[in-house]
């Protein structure tokens, strides 16, 4: 008997564990209208961002794919796209792409409607109608095997590599054994440890691709002529005991568990079913989490040593730490404490089970601290400059 949880069935066969109304500005110029509509309609989520115009090539494509992917995320039940009317990102193409999942998508532009005030009123009417439909939608039993969880570490210190990441890895193995998917990212943060992940790739092509994306990233750093160590490890990482990117990476990779890596995917690319996948993504917390959400992750499990309040627009972010003092100091922002691994009073298995239990509860509706506090961070990783 396949294990089920209570969730939302989507028309394309995906499952959702939240039922958001998402308001997407195609371009920075629409941000204000989107945010105002969100304020008028409780429960709606807007994703203001800095891009959508003056972009070309791969950079333009990336913005489109991030907006489309976030709209297509199965935690989103309905979408309103608000365009200015003259920008680079094509709002009609965006609407078509998101509509292919079967969810309702409305789209309009501020210039045609006649300015901000009319756009806010028009958008609020649409939002109220869509929200009413979403609220009527009931949860049903859905297969746990369709759950996709992203693993991330941020604000790491020495406790991350010693305890919280291995414990998260144990929980990741639990989801994989149920048939679910895990995605790990942060190409920056496997530098120095990539050979260990490469060994676990299911085929030589996949391990070649892994080496390729690390090499591609290191070349970017070299192109800037910069020493990585000013940016990564961060000052907080260093104060917390991490001396080099290699040390940080070795502590990072344990969070994805022990399963073979079934594929290497690009930033914001759709996360496949049933396995562990690596997504090319920066170490930057918000950009990485946003990319994984655009890929279809339902939940992000986020280990931290220094502490961060960050959440995400359409996915619950579970905060996990093994730094007891920080957990007590920032308890508003932390969900799970596994510091008892460090004094030996909890085993790796017990800590892993604690995290796994939380994942299932959050999937069934429990709010994370980040959701309670209304965190909805969203940002798009850039490739090129604005023109």
């Amino acid at each position, binding site marked *: 008997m396949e294990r089920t949880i209570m969730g939302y069935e989507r028309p394309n066969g995906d499952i959702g564990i939240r039922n958001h109304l998402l308001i997407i500005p195609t371009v920075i110029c629409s941000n204000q209208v989107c945010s105002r509509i969100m304020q008028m309609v409780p429960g709606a989520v807007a994703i203001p961002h800095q891009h959508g115009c003056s972009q070309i090539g791969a950079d333009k494509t990336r913005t489109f794919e991030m907006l489309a992917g976030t709209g297509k995320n199965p935690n989103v039940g309905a979408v309103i796209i608000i365009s200015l009317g003259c920008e680079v990102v094509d709002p009609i193409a965006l609407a078509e792409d998101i509509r292919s999942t079967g969810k309702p998508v409305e789209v309009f532009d501020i210039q045609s409607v006649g300015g901000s005030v009319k756009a806010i009123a028009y958008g609020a009417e649409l939002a109220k109608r869509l929200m009413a439909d979403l609220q009527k939608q009931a949860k049903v039993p859905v297969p746990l095997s369709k759950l996709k969880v992203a693993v991330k570490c941020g604000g790491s*210190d*020495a*406790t991350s*590599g*010693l305890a919280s990441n291995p414990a998260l890895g144990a929980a990741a193995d639990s989801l994989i054994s149920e048939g679910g998917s895990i995605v790990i990212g942060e190409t920056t943060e496997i*530098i*120095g*440890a990539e050979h*260990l992940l490469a060994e676990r790739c299911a085929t030589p092509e996949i391990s070649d691709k892994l080496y390729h994306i690390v090499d591609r990233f*290191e070349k970017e*750093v*070299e*192109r*800037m*002529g*910069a*020493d*990585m*160590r000013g940016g*990564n490890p961060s000052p907080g990482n*260093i*104060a*917390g*005991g991490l*001396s*080099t*990117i*290699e*040390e940080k990476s*070795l*502590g990072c990779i344990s969070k994805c568990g022990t399963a073979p890596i079934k594929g290497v995917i690009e930033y914001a690319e759709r996360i496949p079913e049933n396995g562990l996948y690596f997504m090319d993504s920066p170490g930057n917390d918000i950009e990485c989490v946003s990319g994984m959400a655009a890929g279809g992750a339902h939940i992000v499990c986020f280990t931290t*040593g220094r502490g961060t309040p960050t959440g995400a627009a359409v996915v619950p972010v579970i905060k996990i730490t093994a730094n007891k003092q920080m957990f007590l100091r920032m308890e508003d922002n932390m969900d799970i404490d596994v510091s008892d691994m*460090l*004094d030996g009073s909890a085993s790796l298995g017990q800590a892993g089970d604690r995290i796994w239990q939380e994942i299932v509860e959050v999937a069934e509706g429990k709010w994370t601290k980040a959701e309670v506090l209304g965190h909805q961070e969203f940002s798009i990783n850039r490739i090129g400059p604005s023109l």
Partner: protein
Amino acid sequence: MNDRDHVVTSLREIGAGETIKYRNAAGEQAVVVRNDIPFGHKIAISNIEAGTDVRKYGEVIGRAVEPIAIGQHVHVHNIEGIRGRGDLGKETN
């Protein structure tokens, strides 16, 4: 974390002069700590020559930039990362 390691990681603040204990395949070992060590920082458990690769988790985490004595604080002042060093220009690996 591994028998090949040159360092251990502290789980509390440690004062210079304290003796710490850790466990490896040979049993319990003791080291006199030479510096004040903040929570989560590393201590050398063997003498490390300048230019040597330094190991933690059994893997290379960096390279010693000066000689490091057993019991000393090991961190950004005496080891450096080898990867992502655009400042060094093209390195042959």
